[in-house]
């Protein structure tokens, strides 16, 4: 394990200054992913800047109904917050579907967005991996890929993003705030993650040296009636093989509003915009739900061993939307 320096920052400007756009320095939040990657040699930073003391650990409701979540809020605190549970239940459910109680009490919101893939080739430094070492190849395409991407992948990388939280945030049009030495900036989560293309090692649009300071969830009345369903290979403590964050507003048997985002199908949380277009204005019935799922899955390009995800996603969309519609009718 490489020796590294450890520093602690106490305010945002200080943290950004300490990082100084040094490519060998990493911000340390909960460390639940970074420290693992350092142990396995995937990350070899020369310096860590600990940001857990930054005053970014609050969740605030704004007068316009939006919710501002600080970057160092722990996953556990996020899931337990009454406003989150009331207005964005799918977000609370998504967070609780991930990791374990101990990990959620350490992991931060900002770090969660920047989780690295758990692809077994990425985490093994003796294996080739375009995401870890550009140009070395992607052994998953010919090898083990039964939990890899069916949407938006490329011949250079088929890994999936591991976050549950980010799937719910994607459904609710979250905006990511960051700070750089030149001042603050923001970017919609929809534009936060880069397409895979031939640069799978470049994952987000965050400028070099930027620190995520928080997330804003704009007001979304439909989100109050939302759900997160996660399918995994055991009942707890496993990454999704397919997940869905969904919100549905049905009036008089017609879908008035709908939000859908998928997890474990792509290199990023996958907002199912094509499915939403089919849903909105259509009758709230199984036929519509299947059509919506199929509209999204038309772009799916499964590999030999992950074609089941197409069926899984279709079934999930139908099951969760049916549940939400039935509950709304009660």
């Amino acid at each position: 394990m490489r020796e590294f320096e450890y520093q602690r920052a106490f305010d945002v400007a200080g943290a950004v200054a300490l990082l100084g756009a040094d490519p060998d320095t990493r911000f340390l939040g909960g460390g639940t992913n970074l420290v693992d990657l350092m142990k396995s040699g995937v990350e070899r930073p020369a310096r860590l800047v600990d940001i857990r003391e930054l005053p970014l650990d609050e969740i605030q409701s704004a007068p316009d109904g939006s919710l501002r979540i600080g970057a160092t809020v722990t996953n556990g605190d996020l899931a337990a917050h009454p406003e989150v549970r009331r207005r964005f239940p799918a977000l609370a459910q998504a967070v609780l579907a991930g990791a374990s109680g101990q990990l959620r009490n350490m992991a931060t919101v900002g770090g969660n967005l920047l989780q690295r893939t758990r692809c077994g080739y990425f985490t093994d430094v003796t294996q080739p991996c375009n995401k870890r070492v550009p140009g070395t190849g992607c052994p998953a395409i010919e090898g083990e890929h039964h939990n890899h991407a069916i949407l938006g992948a490329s011949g250079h990388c088929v890994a999936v993003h591991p976050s549950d939280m980010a799937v719910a945030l994607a459904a609710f049009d979250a905006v990511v705030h960051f700070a750089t030495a030149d001042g603050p900036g923001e970017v919609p989560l929809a534009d936060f993650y880069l397409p895979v293309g031939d640069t799978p090692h470049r994952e987000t649009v965050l400028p070099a040296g930027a620190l995520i300071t928080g997330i804003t969830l704009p007001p979304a009345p439909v989100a109050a009636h939302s759900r997160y369903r996660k399918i995994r290979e055991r009942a707890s403590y496993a990454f999704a093989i397919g997940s869905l964050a969904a919100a549905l507003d049905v009036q008089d048997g017609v879908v008035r509003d709908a939000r859908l985002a998928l997890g474990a199908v792509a290199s990023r949380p996958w907002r199912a915009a094509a499915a939403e277009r089919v849903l909105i204005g259509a009758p709230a019935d199984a036929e519509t739900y299947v059509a919506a799922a199929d509209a999204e899955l038309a772009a799916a390009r499964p590999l030999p061993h992950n074609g089941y995800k197409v069926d899984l996603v279709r079934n999930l969309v139908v099951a969760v939307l049916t549940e939400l519609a039935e509950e709304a009718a009660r």
Partner: protein
Amino acid sequence: MTTATTGIPVRPASVGTAHTRIEGRDKVTGAAQYAAEVPFTDLAHGWLVLSTIARGRIRALDTDAVLAMPGVLAVLDHRNAPRVETDYVGFLGKPDPTCAVFQHDRVPHLGWPVALVVAETSEQAREAAESLVVHYEQEPHDVEFRGDHPDAYPVDAIMPAVTGKGDLEAALAASAVVVDAEYTTPEEHHNPMEPHAATAHWDGGRLELIDSNQGATWVLGDLAKLFSLDPASVRVRSEHVGGGFGSKGVRAHQVAAVMAATVLQRPVRVVLTRRQMFSLIGYRSPTTQRVRLGADADGRLRALEHRSLSATSTVHEFVEPSAGVARVMYDAGAHHTANRVVRLDVPTPTFMRAPGEAPGSFALEAAVDELAEKCGIDPIELRLRNEPDKGPVSGLPFSGRNLAACFREGARRFGWADRDPRPAVRRDGRWLLGTGTAAASFPSGAAPSTATATAHPDGTFTVRISAADIGTGARTALTLVAADALQVPPERVHVRIGDSDFGPAMLAGGSMGTRSWSWAVQAAGGELLERLALGTDIPPEGITVRSDTAAAVGALTPAERHSFGAQFAEVAVDVTTGEVRVRRMLGIFAAGRIVNPLTARGQFLGGMIWGISMALHEEAVRDRASGGPVGADLAGYHVATHADVPRIEADWIEDTDPDDPVGIKGIGEIGIVGAAAAIANAVWHATGVRHRNLPIRPDRVLSARAGAPDA
């Protein structure tokens, strides 16, 4: 079961009463020291460098650059390491050359140890080891295990490879009902909580090893032979062990630590990472098993064939004897079994909890369930109709076969009589529900052991035996046995284990540990009591007697000696998501006298939970291109979490073994046997689909629904 001696009132037995772990408080407070935690002055740390190719030759190692790194003391590889002797027969046969590290330049699998880097700190050793550049001459490899591999051949191991009687094809042709199915189980890894760790040092001309193992004298025997040492000049200590499951014998890290301690003449510690354990400690081979059953319309077997194929390495033959279970469970006029292996460029597999029985019972007990379905007979009734009255292959009598009683008690408690045999007709919301059952068996045996018992002037006793408590509760069980033998409360007995200086004893394996050790402890305690009855004063150093059970164990008459059990499971399956959840399980066992109900229940439950993992979760994936494991950590390799474990009950029926002085049979492994089959049979009952390939993953459930009725 106590030794009554004139003049001493017989106390109520401690054996059979619940007793918390004697070292439990030390373990939960962190006071118990595991092998990697014992402090040493001047300790150096070794880190193993593993090959990144699956087959070939080491051309060169750039050790100069590594030797110049901070703290680095030495690099051992095949050019400079001490020579070891591998041409010997140890307790379990010829040694797996995998443990004889750095003897040649050949690389037989990915993850083969090619060097040990020793440094002042563990971090320095790791950084240097991960920086070491090794040049290879790579050769094409074959790591792909498949049932039709052309190079498979039969291997005699702990049992003959092939048994056969009667004309199989004729009996199948004459059968009213035939089942012919292939079952597969994946590569599985032990993954004990505590990674393997050893510290070696020379102390006044004596080699001492602080280790985490399943048998101190077992490891001592191998080390003495490997390094051509007088066994009396070697001491192995292993006081607390965080799980073993068959993986903790002599492995590369202990041998490398001894080499480095010898070269550097200072203590050297080598600890394995979780990822290294996937290459270095053995594992359970994948199996492909074909079972053919032929029966009359009333379910009585005419023909039974069970053929199993497993993989081994190119350097050592290890066979996973899955077909052996058929030699115990069911008889037929035509009865044929075979265990074959194929050599691949993979690490050598090894014993893993219930070797043979765990995968074998999955195939056989699932096939029996299929036969019951085809015959239209209740699967318990079908099994009862096929209860053999003697060993189907050996012809020997059974020394207690209480399988039928297990099924009757289990069926009563599980509510089996109310079961509708039709598949795919029960629903609870999105879940399809089903129940399943399977039989279990595991050999019961004893091996020679020695023990000492010492009486102290203050009325307390010390019992010493080179036993290993790998989490089973053996230390506590032996305390209860000793208390009864000495006719005192357990609080007056101090049992010391895990030290080869206490003399030869059986290892913790084969479900034979507690039985073998208890025999020796009982004998020593009984003899000491007789000495004390003579009324002599106890001197300050105490009075010590030694027992050796070799003659008594050797006098056991040949018989079919096994523990038995009946497993029951209820599952819920969502065929639209592929999720399978076990809702409840019940295991009823006939496994000899139960020494400590508290820890025994834990062992049974642990085995059954492992059965849930085997049925639904556990699977190591080997990358065909590189030859190495993918996702080699506990995030990638799934075992059941708490959330996967439902209400589980384990219980037992009276089954005291008349041929054992304490009445013990052994319970270490039977808990997992049959559990996966019971769950797979329940999945069929829920969905109508036979899942013959483990684990029953969501993608398999989803794909099966879209396709054929078999998966």
